[in-house]
């Protein structure tokens, strides 16, 4: 089993229900294909540094998971078909860093309120 990190970006006009559905969908795909999701992060709506497919902003989702080559092949195959997704990135890491979340903006805002 190897450790991987995965980021995908969806279109900017998502409802909360939709985003939860999408997370559930891709977690299922990982878990069913001999993988295991360690952590899920939502980075929320972010502005792009440049235009992608005529979109200026999108929702970012982040997975940390363990898996094999088959897991990634299946995950990326379905993501290529999915029309809501704009872009994705998979990276192999030696060890999962579960402590730092560089995009934990939302929690901070809640504390202020």
């Amino acid at each position, binding site marked *: 089993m190897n450790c991987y990190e995965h*980021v995908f*970006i969806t279109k900017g006009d998502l409802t909360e229900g939709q985003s939860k559905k999408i997370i559930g969908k891709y977690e299922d795909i990982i878990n069913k294909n001999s993988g295991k999701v360690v952590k899920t992060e939502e980075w929320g709506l*972010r502005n*792009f*540094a*440049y235009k*992608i497919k005529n979109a200026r902003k999108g929702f*970012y989702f982040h997975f940390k998971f363990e898996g094999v080559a088959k897991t990634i092949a299946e995950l990326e195959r379905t993501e290529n078909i999915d029309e809501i997704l704009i*872009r994705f*990135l998979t*990276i192999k890491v030696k060890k999962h*860093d579960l402590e*730092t979340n*560089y*995009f934990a903006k939302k929690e901070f805002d809640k504390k202020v309120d």
Partner: protein
Amino acid sequence: MKRKKNIRKKSSSFSKLSLFQKSGTKFFKPCPLSGKNPPVIDYKNIKLLKKYLSDSGRILPSRVTSVSQKKQRELSQAIKRARLISLL
């Protein structure tokens, strides 16, 4: 070979920052990403990566930032990953 010589000349003029520095002594700045408790180079750590980009978004050469060879490689890899998902 010619090109290499040119580069060397340039870097030597860069390394001498002060007019009053003695000729012959080398100006040395330690790598900011090595040493004790170095910051983590990661494509998610945008705050760190932005320090090593020019205003127009290009990667700064290590002779300007004095980042070590190994860390410069990691840095450029991380910057390119961040660019791919449109963070930088």
